[in-house]
């Protein structure tokens, strides 16, 4: 099983994400954003958290135009799996690999704390190891996590069971308490919380580990 973690100027959760992939059994490569090609034989790409390009213009907007993102879009278009966390979620929305946008938190403050989440669907390669409706604790740390989508888009996400995680107690004003969404083919997940920060008992929690275990199981099964 092979994973790649993208690295942009300003990424700061890239190594944490690589550690989480490796702990789940993935052979993991770091890929600089100026690369135009991805490593061969890749199963999943991680787009990490951080503050790519200092959040200039809009969070994720400039990273979304990086050379490597063209390769990522091609990979996703061929049915590849992509996981975007926090700033990575913002990048995936800016590339339109996921619908909607992430706006400034409704309370205007940077929110950094442990957050309760509900697993809203287990029908995805990222959430199959959780129980339906399971409540988990995962850290959040963001200023622009207020997920917004128009009414039509929201109805579509609900009809297609594409809301992966929802907040228990909305920290940022996101419509429908949405914390993470799936692409139409369910192989691209973006979420604001940081599952890679709770994959080891020494982190103070392990509620993120099943996400990586789900992915590993998806590739063993395939």
């Amino acid at each position: 099983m092979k994973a790649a973690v993208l690295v942009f100027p300003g990424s700061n959760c890239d190594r944490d994400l690589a550690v989480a992939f490796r702990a789940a059994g993935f052979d993991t490569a770091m890929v600089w954003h100026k690369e135009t090609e991805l490593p061969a034989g890749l199963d999943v790409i991680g787009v990490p958290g951080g503050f790519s390009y200092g959040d200039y213009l809009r969070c994720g907007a400039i990273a979304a135009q990086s050379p490597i993102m063209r390769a990522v879009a091609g990979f996703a278009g061929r049915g590849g799996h992509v996981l975007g966390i926090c700033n990575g979620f913002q990048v995936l929305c800016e590339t339109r690999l996921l619908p909607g946008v992430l706006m400034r938190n409704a309370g205007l403050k940077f929110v950094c704390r442990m957050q309760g989440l509900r697993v809203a669907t287990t029908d995805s390669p990222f959430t199959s190891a959780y129980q339906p409706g399971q409540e988990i604790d995962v850290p959040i740390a963001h200023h622009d996590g207020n997920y917004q989508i128009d009414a039509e888009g929201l109805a579509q996400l609900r009809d297609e069971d594409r809301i992966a995680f929802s907040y228990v107690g909305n920290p940022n004003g996101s419509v429908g308490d949405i914390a993470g969404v799936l692409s139409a083919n369910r192989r691209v997940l973006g979420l604001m919380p940081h599952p890679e920060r709770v994959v080891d008992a020494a982190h103070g929690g392990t509620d993120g580990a099943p996400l990586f275990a789900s992915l590993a199981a998806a590739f063993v099964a395939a």
Partner: protein
Amino acid sequence: MKATVTVMLKQGVLDPQGEAVKSALGAMGFAGVEGVRQGKVIELDLAPGTTEAQVTEMCEKLLANTVIESYRVEMA
């Protein structure tokens, strides 16, 4: 030549920063501010011959997120 691009949140999109500025103005004693919308202005220095259509493409692809933002281009 220059282009000035003004990017604003679309009408109907909640603007928490504008709301915060409005509330601060009220707290400072400025009465009569009924609404504040905050956007951004981007000035481009352009090589001669650059067309408004090219600037529009820049807006669509990068300068604005048309899901939530509208933009206006002024060439000078």
